[in-house]
C-alpha cells in the first residue's frame, strides 16, 4: 500500500469521532433551527470543519513527509485490512448507544460516545499494527586497511592519502570509521560524524602483523556499522591471507546488504630473499648418505651463504655453501650427508645475504624440517648423574641405537612418554626421583608392551635406592627384600631432638628428623626423644619409642606437633636412646642422631662407652652452635662412638646430611671389598655366550635376593649365600636385566677396562630391548592452518582392511626438549574420523621440528610405535613476494560488479569516485506502537464507565467540599483575629496590674486563661469552643468571636447547609 494512502487512512480513522460529533451537532441544528438559519449554519460550520480538517491534514502530511533532512517518518499499517472491521463496530456503537444510554443527559451521552469510540479506535489501530517508520538517509563508511608485514607502510600511506582526499565529499550526517588488521582486526576509529584521517604513525592498534586474517577484519567491520544506516566497506589489502577465508565473509556481507569495495595494495620493490623449502627424506636408514635440497627465492641478483644444521651429536653437524642467487626460485643441494646418531633430528637451513641491502625481512631466512634416523631400538637412560653413564654411553653410542639420556631435572615428566622406548635403563637412580605413576608406567611398558628394563647398581640403586615394594622391583629379576637372617638388613635409628635458641633451628631439626626417617625402609626402626618439659620425671621423654617405620606418616605428624624444650643435659636422653636401641633384637645397624645446638651438658663418658659397646654409633648435628667449645665437645662425642659430626649452618647442606645418615643405616645393603669380589657363573645363556669363563672382579655391589624364576648368570658368595650380580628374566611380554654392580670405575674398574665391556653391554641391551615391529599405520601431516597442526594416521592391516577402533596414544614434543625448559610434550588425542583414519591436533607456536610418536596399544601383546615429525618455520606471511592477484579478483567478483577498484585511478580523481555517494537503498526503521495503543485503550475504560455511572453534580460536589473547608479556614482566621485582639487590648491598658498579669506564665497560665476567658466574654472567646450554640439569640459562634460579616448570603447559606447536615446526622 502506498505511503500516502496509509497516511490518509490514519487521518480518517483518528478523526472519526470528531467528525461524528460534528455531524451529530449539525444534524441537530439542522433539525431544530429554522431553515434559513440552518443552511447558514451548515455552511459556516461545514466550512470551519473543512478548513480545520484540511489544515490539520496539510500540516500532518507535510511535517511527516518532509525530505529536507536525512530522516523522514511516516505511519505504516502492518495489517491494514483489520481497519475494515472498524466501520461496522463504529456504527454498532452509535446505534447501541442510542439505546442503552438514553437515560443520560445530552452532554453525557456525547462524552460516553467519545470515550467508547476512542477506545475502539485505539484497539483497531493496535490490531492493524500501527507503526511509525523512520527512514534515514545516512551513510556509514568503514575503511579496513591491511597492516600486516606483507604490505609495506608506503602502501598504507597511499590509502590514507586517498581517504583524506575524499573526506570532503562526506555529508554532515554520514559516519566514517577506520579498522586496521593483520592477524587480528582492531578498530582504530569508531564510526562517527567527525572523522579525522589519522596519520600513519598514529595507527597504534595491535594487530599481529605476522599474519593476515582478512575474514576477521570483514567480520569486525560488519559488526561496527550502526543500525539503520547505509553501509559501505572499503577494503585495502594485498590479498595474501594466512588465516581464515575471506571469500565466505564477503558473500555473507553482501547478503546483509553491505556494499564492499576492494582496493588492492601492491608490494613495493624492496630486495627480498627467502627459503621456500628444505627437503630431506622423512626417514633415513642407518648410516646411509642422503641429500638435502634447499629451495631459495629471491627477487634480485645477490650472493648469499646457505647453511644447513643437522643436529648430529657424533658426526658433523653443520654444512655451508656460498651461492649466487638470481631473481626467481633456485635449489641448492647438499649431497652425501650422513647422520651418525639415531632417532629424530631437526634439520635447519639458513640463508644469509652477503650484503645487507639484498634482503629486507629476516623472518623468512630460516626453515626447518624433520627427519628420523631408523635404528634398532630406542633406549631411555635415566640416571642421577651423567658421570654414572659416561662409560656406558661411550660403549653404546655409535651402535645402531638411539640413546636418550636424561638426568635430574630433565627426566620425562609425562609418564606416557616412557612408552615409546624399547628399553629403559635405570643407572643408579634413586626411587625418590620417580613418581609412583612413572614407576607404574615403566612396569607396564615391560609387562604389557614388551619393552626392556635394565637396572644398574650403585649406592642409590636396588635396595639402597629404596626400590623395595615398588612396581619397578616387581619387574626386575631380583628382590630387594632380603629374607636371609644372616645378612640381617634391618636398622634402627634413634633421634634426639633438642631445641635451640634461634627460631629456625627448631624447624631445621624437625626437617632433618623427618628426612632421616623418610629414607628408612619399612623394616627399619625409628624412635625420637626430646626434652618434653617439666611435666614428667627429669623431663626427657620419648615422642615415640623405636617402632617400625611402616607408620611413617604417623611419626611425621608427631614430629610436626612436637615442641622440643630447653634441654639442660644430653646425658640422660642419649643414655635413654642407647638403652632402648641396645635392647632391640635382630637389628644389625643401630644409629643415634643427636640434633642440638651444643649447649646442653654433654653425655658422660660412661654413656658413650655404653653406646660403643652396644655398637651404636652416635652422629651429632649442631644447628647454630654457640661457639667453638660446643662444637669441639660435640665432635668428640661423635668420634667416641664412630659417628659423624655435621654443622647444619646452611640449609642447603641438610639433604646431604640425612641422605648420608640414612645410608649409614642402609649401608649393610652394599657389600664391598676393596680387594675385589670374585664372581661365579650361575647359568649360562645368551648374555654370556661370547665371554668365556672368566669375568672381572667387582669392588662392590648392592645385596639383593634372587627371584625363583630368574636366571642368575653371575653371582658372588657372601657368607655362604649366593647373591646375584647379573640376573635376567622375562616379565610379561618384556624382559629385564639386573646388574647389581655398577658400570663405572667406582665399583667395577676391572669391568670398564675389560676389552669385552662394550660388547657385553651392547649385547645385553640388544637382548633386553623390544624388537621394532613394522607398523600398520602411516602418518601424514596436512598443511598447517593457523596455530594448530593436524596429524593424520591411517591404518590398513595385512589383509587390506581398515583398522578401526584402534587405541592410539601419542605425543608431540616441542623442539628443544631436553635443553629448553619451556619445551613441553603434548599429549595427542586421536579421534577416528573415517574408517581407518584418525586425527589429532597439536598446538604449534614454536619454530623448529616437532617429533611425533604414536603407539598403537590396541593389542597389548603387539604394541607398535612409529615416529614422525613436522617442522614449523616462519609464518606464511613472509612467504610470498607479490600480491595475490587471484584472491583479489575473487573478492571483487564476489562483491559485485565494478567493486574491484584501482587505488591509482581513485587517487587521480577523488571527486569522480568516492564512497559517499548515496546510491544505497534507504534503510527503514519501524517503531511499533501496539502496546502503547493497548495501554491507552485500557486507561480510557474507567472513564467510559464513570461517565455512565458516576453522577457527580459538580456544583453539589463543590459545595460539599467547601462545607468542610470553610470552617477550617474560618478557624484559622478567627484564631489569628483573637490573638490580634488580645494584643491590642494589652497594649491599650496603661499598666498591667501587679497581679494577675494578663499574660500569665508558668503554672498560673491555665487559671489565668480561664480568667481571661471570663473577662473576655463572648467577644473575647478563646475560640476553641466549636460546640453548637443552642442559643438562637446569639449568632452561631462558628469559628470565633469576630465574625466579619462579609457575605450575608454566603453565611446564611452556609448556616443553612450546616443545619441541614446536622439534622441529617441526628436523623441517622
Amino acid at each position: 500500500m502506498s505511503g500516502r494512502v496509509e497516511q490518509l487512512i490514519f487521518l480518517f480513522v483518528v478523526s472519526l469521532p470528531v467528525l461524528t460529533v460534528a455531524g451529530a451537532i449539525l444534524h441537530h441544528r439542522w433539525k431544530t433551527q429554522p431553515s434559513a438559519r440552518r443552511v447558514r449554519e451548515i455552511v459556516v460550520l461545514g466550512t470551519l470543519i473543512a478548513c480545520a480538517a484540511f489544515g490539520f491534514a496539510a500540516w500532518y502530511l507535510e511535517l511527516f513527509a518532509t525530505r529536507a533532512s536525512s530522516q523522514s517518518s511516516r505511519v505504516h499499517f502492518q495489517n491494514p485490512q483489520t481497519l475494515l472491521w472498524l466501520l461496522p463496530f463504529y456504527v454498532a456503537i452509535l446505534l447501541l448507544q442510542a439505546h442503552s444510554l438514553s437515560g443520560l443527559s445530552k452532554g453525557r451521552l456525547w462524552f460516553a460516545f467519545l470515550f467508547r469510540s476512542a477506545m475502539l479506535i485505539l484497539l483497531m489501530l493496535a490490531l492493524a499494527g500501527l507503526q511509525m517508520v523512520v527512514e534515514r538517509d545516512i551513510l556509514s563508511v568503514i575503511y579496513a586497511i591491511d597492516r600486516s608485514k606483507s604490505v609495506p607502510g608506503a602502501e598504507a600511506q597511499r590509502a590514507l592519502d586517498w581517504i583524506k582526499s575524499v573526506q570532503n565529499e562526506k555529508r554532515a550526517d554520514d559516519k566514517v570509521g577506520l579498522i586496521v588488521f593483520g592477524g587480528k582486526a582492531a578498530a582504530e576509529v569508531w564510526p562517527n560524524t567527525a572523522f579525522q584521517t589519522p596519520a600513519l604513525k598514529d595507527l597504534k592498534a595491535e594487530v599481529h602483523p605476522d599474519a593476515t586474517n582478512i575474514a576477521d577484519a570483514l567480520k569486525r567491520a560488519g559488526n561496527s556499522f550502526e543500525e539503520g544506516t547505509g553501509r559501505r566497506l572499503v577494503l585495502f589489502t594485498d590479498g595474501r591471507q594466512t588465516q581464515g577465508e575471506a571469500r565466505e565473509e564477503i558473500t555473507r556481507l553482501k547478503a546483509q546488504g553491505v556494499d564492499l569495495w576492494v582496493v588492492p595494495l601492491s608490494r613495493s620493490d624492496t630486495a627480498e630473499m627467502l627459503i621456500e623449502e628444505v627437503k630431506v627424506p622423512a626417514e633415513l636408514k642407518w648410516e646411509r648418505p642422503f641429500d638435502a635440497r634447499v629451495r631459495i627465492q629471491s627477487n634480485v641478483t645477490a650472493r648469499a651463504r646457505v647453511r644447513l644444521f643437522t643436529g648430529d651429536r657424533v658426526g658433523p653437524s653443520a654444512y655451508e655453501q656460498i651461492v649466487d642467487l638470481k631473481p626467481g626460485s633456485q635449489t641448492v643441494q647438499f649431497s652425501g650427508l650422513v647422520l651418525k646418531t639415531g632417532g629424530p633430528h631437526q634439520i635447519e637451513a639458513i640463508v644469509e645475504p652477503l650484503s645487507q641491502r639484498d634482503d629486507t625481512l629476516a623472518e623468512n631466512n630460516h626453515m626447518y624440517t624433520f627427519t628420523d634416523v631408523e635404528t634398532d631400538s630406542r633406549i631411555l637412560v635415566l640416571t642421577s648423574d651423567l658421570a654414572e653413564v659416561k662409560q656406558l654411553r661411550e660403549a653404546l653410542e655409535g651402535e645402531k641405537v638411539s640413546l636418550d639420556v636424561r638426568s635430574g631435572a630433565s627426566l620425562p615428566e609425562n609418564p606416557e612418554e616412557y612408552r615409546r622406548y624399547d628399553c629403559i635403563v635405570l643407572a643408579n637412580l634413586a626411587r625418590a626421583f620417580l613418581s609412583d605413576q612413572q614407576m607404574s608406567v615403566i612396569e607396564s611398558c615391560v609387562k604389557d608392551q614388551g619393552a626392556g628394563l635394565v637396572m644398574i647398581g650403585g649406592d642409590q640403586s636396588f635396595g639402597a635406592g629404596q626400590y623395595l615394594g615398588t612396581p619397578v622391583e616387581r619387574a626386575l629379576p631380583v628382590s630387594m627384600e632380603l629374607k636371609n637372617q644372616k645378612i640381617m638388613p634391618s636398622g634402627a635409628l634413634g633421634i634426639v631432638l633438642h631445641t635451640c635458641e634461634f627460631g629456625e633451628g627448631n624447624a631445621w631439626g624437625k626437617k632433618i628428623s623427618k628426612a632421616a626417617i623418610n629414607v628408612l625402609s619399612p623394616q627399619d626402626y625409628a624412635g625420637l626423644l626430646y626434652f618434653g618439659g617439666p611435666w614428667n620425671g627429669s623431663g626427657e621423654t620419648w615422642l615415640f619409642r623405636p617402632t617400625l617405620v611402616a607408620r611413617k606418616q604417623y611419626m611425621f605428624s608427631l614430629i610436626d606437633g612436637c615442641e622440643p624444650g630447653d634441654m639442660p643435659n644430653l646425658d640422660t636422653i642419649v643414655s635413654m636412646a642407647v638403652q632402648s636401641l641396645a635392647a632391640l633384637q635382630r637389628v644389625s645397624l643401630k644409629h643415634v642422631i643427636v640434633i642440638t645446638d651444643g649447649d646442653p651438658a654433654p653425655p658422660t663418658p660412661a654413656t658413650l662407652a655404653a653406646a660403643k659397646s652396644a655398637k651404636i654409633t652416635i652422629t651429632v648435628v649442631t644447628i647454630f652452635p654457640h661457639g667453638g667449645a660446643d662444637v669441639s665437645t660435640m665432635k668428640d662425642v661423635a668420634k667416641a662412638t664412630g659417628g659423624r659430626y655435621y654443622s647444619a649452618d646452611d640449609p642447603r647442606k641438610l639433604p646431604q646430611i640425612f641422605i648420608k645418615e640414612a645410608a649409614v643405616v642402609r649401608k649393610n645393603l652394599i657389600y664391598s671389598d676393596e680387594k675385589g669380589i670374585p664372581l661365579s657363573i650361575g647359568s649360562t645363556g645368551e648374555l654370556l655366550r661370547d665371554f668365556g669363563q672368566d669375568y672381572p672382579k667387582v669392588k662392590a655391589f648392592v645385596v639383593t635376593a634372587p627371584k625363583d624364576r630368574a636366571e642368575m648368570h653371575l653371582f658372588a658368595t657372601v657368607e655362604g649365600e649366593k647373591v646375584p650380580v647379573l640376573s635376567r628374566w622375562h616379565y610379561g611380554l618384556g624382559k629385564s636385566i639386573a646388574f647389581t654392580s655398577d658400570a663405572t670405575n667406582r665399583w667395577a674398574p676391572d669391568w670398564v677396562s675389560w676389552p669385552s665391556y662394550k660388547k657385553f653391554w651392547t649385547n645385553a641391551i640388544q637382548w633386553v630391548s623390544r624388537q621394532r615391529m613394522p607398523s600398520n599405520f602411516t602418518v601424514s601431516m596436512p598443511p598447517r592452518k593457523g596455530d594448530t597442526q593436524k596429524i593424520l594416521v591411517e591404518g590398513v592391516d595385512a589383509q587390506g582392511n581398515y583398522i578401526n577402533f584402534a587405541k592410539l596414544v601419542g605425543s608431540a614434543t616441542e623442539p628443544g626438549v631436553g635443553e629448553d625448559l619451556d619445551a613441553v610434550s603434548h599429549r595427542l588425542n586421536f579421534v577416528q574420523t573415517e574408517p581407518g583414519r584418525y586425527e589429532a591436533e597439536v598446538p604449534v607456536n614454536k619454530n623448529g621440528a616437532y617429533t611425533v610418536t604414536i603407539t598403537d596399544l590396541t593389542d597389548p601383546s603387539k604394541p607398535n610405535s612409529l615416529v614422525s615429525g613436522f617442522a614449523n618455520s616462519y609464518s606464511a606471511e613472509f612467504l610470498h613476494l607479490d600480491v595475490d592477484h587471484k584472491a583479489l579478483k575473487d573478492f571483487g567478483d564476489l562483491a559485485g560488479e565494478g567493486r574491484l577498484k584501482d587505488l591509482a585511478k581513485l587517487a587521480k580523481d577523488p571527486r569522480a569516485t568516492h564512497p559517499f555517494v548515496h546510491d544505497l537503498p534507504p534503510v527503514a526503521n519501524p517503531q511499533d506502537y501496539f502496546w502503547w495503543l493497548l495501554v491507552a485503550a485500557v486507561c480510557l475504560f474507567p472513564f467510559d464507565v464513570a461517565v455512565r455511572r458516576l453522577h457527580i453534580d459538580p456544583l453539589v460536589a463543590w459545595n460539599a467540599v467547601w462545607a468542610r473547608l470553610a470552617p477550617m479556614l474560618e478557624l484559622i482566621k478567627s484564631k489569628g483575629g483573637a490573638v490580634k485582639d488580645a494584643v491590642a487590648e494589652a497594649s491599650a491598658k496603661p499598666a498591667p496590674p501587679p497581679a494577675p498579669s494578663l499574660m500569665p506564665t508558668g503554672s498560673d497560665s491555665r487559671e489565668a486563661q480561664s480568667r481571661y476567658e471570663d473577662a473576655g466574654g463572648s467577644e473575647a472567646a478563646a475560640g476553641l469552643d466549636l460546640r453548637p450554640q443552642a442559643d438562637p439569640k446569639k449568632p452561631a459562634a462558628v469559628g470565633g468571636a469576630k465574625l466579619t460579616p462579609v457575605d450575608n448570603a454566603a453565611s446564611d447559606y452556609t448556616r443553612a447547609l450546616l443545619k441541614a447536615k446536622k439534622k441529617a446526622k441526628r436523623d441517622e
Partner: protein
Amino acid sequence: MSVLPAASRSVVLLAVSGVLAAVLLFWNGAPKHEPAPRPAGKDAAAAPAWTIVGRQGLELGGFNQPRGIAALPDGSFVVADRSARVQHFSADGKPLALWIMQEHALGNPKGLAALPNGGLLVCDTHYGRVLEMSIDGKVVKQWGGPGKEPGQFVHPLSCAVDARAGVAYVVEYGAYNDRVQKFKLDGTFIKAWGGFGSEPGKLNRPSGVAVDGQGGVWVADACNHRIQKFDAEGTLLGAYGDLGGGDGQLSYPFDLACAPNGEVFVAEFNNNRVSVFDAEGRFVRAMGMAGTQPGEFNQPWSLAVDAQGRLLVSDTRNNRVQIIQASGPAPRAVARAAVESPKQAQGNP
C-alpha cells in the same frame, strides 16, 4: 496461657526463648574455679602474697625469658634475659634502666652477682668470660677468656660474691670441665675445684652458686640433681638431694641463694618450684608449682634473696619475676652449723 490472646502468647514465647538463648550463649558454665590457697609445703601458715614484676615484651620492664637475677644491697635488683638485655629494677619493681650486652651473637649472659662496689659481675656464658660491669652497663673489666686452664672459662653459668671475704666464685660447665673457680674481687684467680662427674664433689653442669653467711659455698649441681656445699677452700661439706619431685628431691636445680637466716632456696627448673633447705641441707619446705598464676612457675632459671629476706624468682617461661617475703632477717645469734661428715651428706636428710 489461654487467657492471653494469641499475639501476646507468641510474644511471651519469643521473649522466653530469647532469654534462654542469651543465657546459653554467654554463660561460661560453672563459675571460675578459684584455686584454693595452697599451703607452701608443710608450712601452712598464712601464705604471703607474691608480687609480679614484668611481663613478656622487649620494652623497658618487659622480659624475654629472664634468667640471671641478682639482688643489690639497696633492695633493687637486676635481671638478665634471653635477648641479651640486663634491666635494673627498683625495690618495688619499677624498671629503672636497661642495657644490652654489646656482644651477644654467640649467646646471652646467664648468671649475675652484685659487687660490693656497686658494680655487677656478669657471666657471659658463650664467650667464656666473666665481665665486671658498672650498673649502667659499661664493661669495667674482663675476667678470663675461653679455655680450660685455671682462670679461663668454657661456659661460666653463675657467680657469687662473698663481700666479707673479698672473693667471688664462678661455676662453669662445658668440655667436661665442670668446676668452681675462686677469684679475688679484682679478678685474680685463686683456686678451682670440682671436675666433671657424678660422685660427691664432682659436678655436672653446676649452674648456680651462692655464699652463705659463714663463707660456705653452695653449688646447684643441675645435671646431678643435687646441691652441694663446700667450704671456702673447696672441701666438700655435703651433697643433698636426688632426682625426683617429692620433698627433698630435686629435678635440674638451676640456681640457689642463701637467705640471711641461713636457709637455702633452690630454683628447680624441671619441678617448677623453689625448694627450701636449711643450713644442714635438710629439706624445709617447697614453694610453688607448675603454672602461670602468682606463686606458680614455669622453668625458673634463677633466684636471689636480698638482705631483707625477700625472695626474687626469675620465672623464665612466664616472662616475669616473682617476689615474696619468704624469709626472716638474719637471726641475731648465728649458730654455727655442725659440719656434717661427707658420709652423712648423702641421701635424704
